[in-house]
């Protein structure tokens, strides 16, 4: 099963490599890994998306907790939660027709066109991974020049929260 694990870590140099090193050393799967500081500058928040049986995910969580720099973590998949990923995608739009078509698709998917040249549109879009995949699929014949995805982030719904 797919799990989204959110981790609060000491914001120290090398903290990220402790997590990524753990996954590679123990052969765990990483679908995506994102990291950034939080409102508390001493803490970073990581989101790891992984796949594995219940036993493996249980081990992953225990091993993550064992890392000295990990302050707290939460398996979001165990709670109601919201998942988002951001994508920026650069599309070739040579003709007027394709410009209109891409703009229309982007609107349907609630994207924003954030950069324009005579031959390209760059669209910013957020959503869960499936939505972003669907947008890429919908672009069909419009040549994609570049795709950047942030990897998933998540947050629990309601009162539930990962904080100190």
């Amino acid at each position, binding site marked *: 099963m797919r799990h989204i694990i959110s981790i609060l870590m000491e914001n120290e140099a090398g903290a990220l490599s402790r997590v990524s090193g753990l996954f590679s050393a123990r052969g765990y799967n990483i679908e995506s890994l994102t990291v950034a500081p939080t409102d508390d500058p001493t803490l970073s928040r990581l989101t790891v998306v992984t796949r594995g049986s219940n*036993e493996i995910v249980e081990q992953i969580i225990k091993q993550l907790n064992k890392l*000295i*720099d990990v*302050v707290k973590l939460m398996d979001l998949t165990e709670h109601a939660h919201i998942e988002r990923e951001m994508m920026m995608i650069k599309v070739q739009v040579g003709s007027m027709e394709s410009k209109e078509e891409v703009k229309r698709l982007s609107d349907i998917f609630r994207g924003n066109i954030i950069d324009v040249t005579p031959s390209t549109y760059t669209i910013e879009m957020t959503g869960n991974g499936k939505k972003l995949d669907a947008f890429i699929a919908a672009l069909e014949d419009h040549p994609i020049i570049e795709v950047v995805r942030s990897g998933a982030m998540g947050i629990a719904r309601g009162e539930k929260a990962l904080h100190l």
Partner: protein
Amino acid sequence: MELTGAEIFTHCLKEEGVDLIFGYPGGAVLHIYDALYQQQDVSHILVRHEQGAVHAAEGYAKSTGKTGVVLVTSGPGATNAVTGIADAYMDSVPMVVFTGQVPTSLIGNDAFQEVDTIGITRPCVKHNFLVKDVSELAETIKKAFYVAASGRPGPVVVDIPKDVTAARAEFKYPKKVKMRSYNPTVKGHPGQVKKALELILSAERPMIYSGGGVLTSGASKQLTDFTRLLGAPITNTLMGLGSFPASDKQFVGMLGMHGTYEANMGMHHCDVLIAIGARFDDRVTGNVEKFCPSARIVHIDIDPASISKNVQVDVPIVGDVGSVLKEMIKGLKESGKKLNQTALKAWWKQVDEWRSEDCLKFDRESKLIKPQYVVETLHKITKGDAFVTSDVGQHQMFTAQFYGFNKPYRWINSGGLGTMGFGLPSAMGAQLANPDSTVACVTGESSIQMCIQELGTCRQYGLPIKILNLNNGYMGMVRQWQEFFYQGRYAMSYMESLPDFVALAESYGHVGMRIEKPEDVEGAIKEALKMKDRLVFMDFITDPEENVYPMIPAGAGQNEMILV
């Protein structure tokens, strides 16, 4: 008081109560060596290779329960230490390793003797720190000692750039550390303890399986009390030997790949398994699919990640083994309940039947020296009271099987990593920590050569270690596997051009002996032990083709042993 980083270093060690460190100098740590030179509180043992320093610190730690301390230089000093660090990690040895680093301004520039020590050691330490500013040094050292020794212990590396050791800062050693991200659980959950007792008391065929965690926790007494109170058979892992007296009737020997028939059969047939401070290592379980097929399992361990890692357990208790056992003993006594005695009697009858197989028998009439006989004789002469270290191979297994450890902290070996070269340097650490005790190193002619240079250290510090080299002329354990599983194709397992060990020992200023006949074994060991202030290297020429039995072949279940 304002001090240099190097002075802060020595002051911190003193504050931590460190009296002895093991190390080797080099450019990046010269300020530190200069500070060490100018104080008296901490003595420094100069090894001959950094791997030796780490193993020596392990021997020191394992024989005392204290934290071992190592100091090495940057680059090759640090990389040479890595094998030892990995070894300490696998065996949960409390240790702080200080590595020199190039000055902060040069980090990342491929400077002379620069390596990414933090990166290289990350997967084999409990934690590591790079000290970037002298103002952080004292607190980092405090944290390092705290992390190394608490919870499930392990090695912590502190990487100190040279400029940090020269810079000055106000010295104040923190009295306490608090780390919001690190809070090991000590006390077991009362509900789980209760559940465990209920399960244990329902057993008809109980089995206790305990490991090195009992020693780490200092819980031999609690383990012994609990076991006697319960009346169940007990087996120890390789790492747990000595935590329960081997001569006790309830002890059924070591379990696992070269464990006794009675221990492994007991495991296979038990209905409740009580795992205490052990981690279900593959050398213990054999094929996990076939492991303890009819048992429900209680597992006590301080490391939650050890629980249900290899084998799913029914009642986990996270906590310090000693503290949990104390609760369990209390629970048992208060309830006044006992195991079903009729069932227990029948179970013991079965266990004793397995025991009567006498799985450790060997040919006592042989004209060749049997390695088992040497170890047995060492036990007899030292009354089972010596500190015994070993290297890795057949001799290690023979020592585990035949020395019969009755006391904790006497058996010092490399269990998890299986590092040849461990024996001699770890014996140095044990001897330095226990200057008035007999320290014996049982080794093989291949293993001993991996850290043979430490004979020089032994000479320098007058360490009267007794080395028993079980010289079978082969990498015996490798040869055994090749005999069993590769139709006797002995690829590279024969060590040609062995040195003359007697002459070698003598060249370092030690005593050397060569023993070739079984009838000379006892006399030689006695004579060696009489030389209280000399290192004696006993080169026993043993049966080249002896094998370690019983053996569970890879992939087999615990009931599928090869017997003699």
